[in-house]
């Protein structure tokens, strides 16, 4: 049995993300192929910064045409108001590369996504922004989907250190790449780390252009 007090306190700092474990509500979004156009519609892509994207998250689903909240949408229902985790259908995040989708999810307060498969670009975008996307087996996702759907059982504890998701009546373990885990836990500046090896890149470039002179841009 997971108890709230057994969970390490979730640790987030706005700006850079340091994730150890997080406790909160989960909501089900079982449809397959929820694309980034649906997650963040085009009218919210007209900015030049990352701000204000929580307003656009799932806009077409969350709001009716007159701008009033759609009472049937899961995240508008009282039992799922403070959702931190989404249990999602296959191929979540397919379509456009827009990172705005991930920024919006983060700003809305979503800490982790759990599903069987995620689209490739979206999956990478999550990793770059401290949003934990967990790939789990279809039986585990089915179990978590059922729990997330039941307002009496939708408290989850998502633990990154121990790679577990705990619900009231089950604990599942998940896999994650060591490098992604480290980045999520420490919030590394990937560009800074890469630039520490700038000489290796410069050397590579010299060799690459010597072998393939036509590739040198001019």
């Amino acid at each position, binding site marked *: 049995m997971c108890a709230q007090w057994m969970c390490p306190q979730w640790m987030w700092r706005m700006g850079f993300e340091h994730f150890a474990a997080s406790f909160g509500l989960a909501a089900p979004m079982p449809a397959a192929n929820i694309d980034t156009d649906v997650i963040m519609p*085009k009218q919210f892509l007209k900015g030049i910064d990352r701000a204000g994207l929580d307003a656009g998250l799932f806009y077409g689903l969350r709001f009716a045409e007159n701008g009033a909240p759609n009472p049937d949408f899961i995240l508008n229902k009282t039992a799922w108001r403070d959702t931190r985790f989404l249990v999602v259908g296959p191929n979540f995040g397919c379509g*456009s*590369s827009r990172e705005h989708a991930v920024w919006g999810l983060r700003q809305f307060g979503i800490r982790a996504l759990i599903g069987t498969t995620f689209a490739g*670009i979206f999956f*990478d975008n999550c990793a770059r922004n401290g949003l934990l996307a967990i790939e789990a087996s279809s039986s585990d996702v089915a179990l978590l989907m059922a729990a997330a759907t039941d307002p009496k059982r939708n408290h989850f504890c998502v633990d990154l250190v121990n790679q577990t998701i705990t619900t009231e009546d089950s604990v599942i373990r998940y896999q994650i790449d*060591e490098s992604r885990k480290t980045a999520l836990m420490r919030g590394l500046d990937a560009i800074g780390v*890469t630039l520490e090896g700038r000489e*290796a*890149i410069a050397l590579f470039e010299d060799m690459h252009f010597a072998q393939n*002179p036509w590739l040198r841009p001019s």
Partner: protein
Amino acid sequence: MKPERAHRTLYDKIVDAHSVRMLDAASGLLLLYIDRTVLNEYTSPQAFSGLREAHRRVWRPEAALGVVDHVNPTAAGRTRTMPDPGGQLQTDYFAKNCAEFGIELFDVLHPMQGIEHVVMPELGAIMPGMTVAAGDSHTTTYGAFGALGFGIGTSDIEHYLATQTVIYRRLKNMRVNLSGRRPQGITAKDIVMALIRKIGASGATGYAIEFAGAGLGDLSVEGRMTICNMAVECGARGAIAAPDEAVFAYVADKPRAPRGEAWERAVAAWRRLKSDDATEFDREVDLPLTSIEPMVTWGTSPDQSMPISAAIPDPRTLGDADKRRDYERALDYMGLAPGQSISSIKIDRAFIGSCTNARIEDLREAAFVLRGRKVAPHVRAMIVPGSSSVRRQAEAEGLDLIFKSAGFEWRQAGCSMCLAMNDDVLAPEERCASSTNRNFEGRQGARGRTHLMSPAMVAAAAVAGRLADVRAMDVPAMDVAHGL
């Protein structure tokens, strides 16, 4: 970098040749050198802001090109003024960023402006064996040249700009064998739509596809671009075809292609770009072309498609409850009923455009159908060429006259109603026959209804006023390589 296997795929060879160093062997993460990028106004702003905040410079500005394509209008007589303040903000900031970081820009009024994935190949900026990462998922288009192209998010654009590399996870290899000959009237679009239907919207997630087989050699380079472009709609983050003489000939006369001795050396190297004979792929898919029909989507995911002669599937016949619910939702959104014949679906709009199908051959294809015909009176039809160069070429061939006399609007270049970020949008519940790549909910306008198909099929639908089989229209054999 040492090859890991004795026999390698073309994809693996390109990745190996661009690996700066391994980052995490266990998970296949490596630092991948990127030869080129193309930037647009809507996915790049935060990347430039990030560079500025960290006082970083662009590693190799001359390897990048900026193109305004997503938010600009396509109406005649356009100016640098965008229809809405957001678009103006983005295009202004983009111009400032390109200027300050030393990146060449094709702004709205530049004579070479157009959709990024149409512009790059026509410049000769895409060559076999290179890596291209860009802030747009359809960067897979460049696989038609035997290049590895893939989409990245804004954080990765920033990483690329600062380091000329991206953190990359090696993909598995899938070979799609296009077997047999493609029947008359069947286009590259029908082939890739049939593939997506066959393997599903996530069928190639985690894979790079290599297209192979007799049917590939039959396709023009632009046809291959259509296929590689849309391969991302089945999840592939890399779609490659080994380059052949057709590719070399296509690149040869482009303005930025290598010349003289450099060209000879390049072609000699490009001839070696192919998978080793004995290579085993992680997955093999056979797609017989002989039985393919013109394809049309009926739903809201690119894999929800059927041949034009078929009827809308009945969700009740599906065993899988999740899938049944997805189908029902799609039919409800599209305003369609199970069992309805696809060719009975009436349309309001027809759109030919996008990086999938707005190159010169696509426009010729449409012109073959539209010559001497008229758009049905209740249909508003438009053609948005993929680039300003394509537009000029089409006008030189007189295609614009065919389009205009058929009743199509002949517009200026851009993404336009492919994603409707400019002022070209569907009204709620308007139904559109579209040569684009995504039929997602709201993609072409809130509650708009999109049916994806080839340019020839869009033209046929525009004339019939409903979805229609172009093969029944007595169109001459479409020699798109040479035109009318």
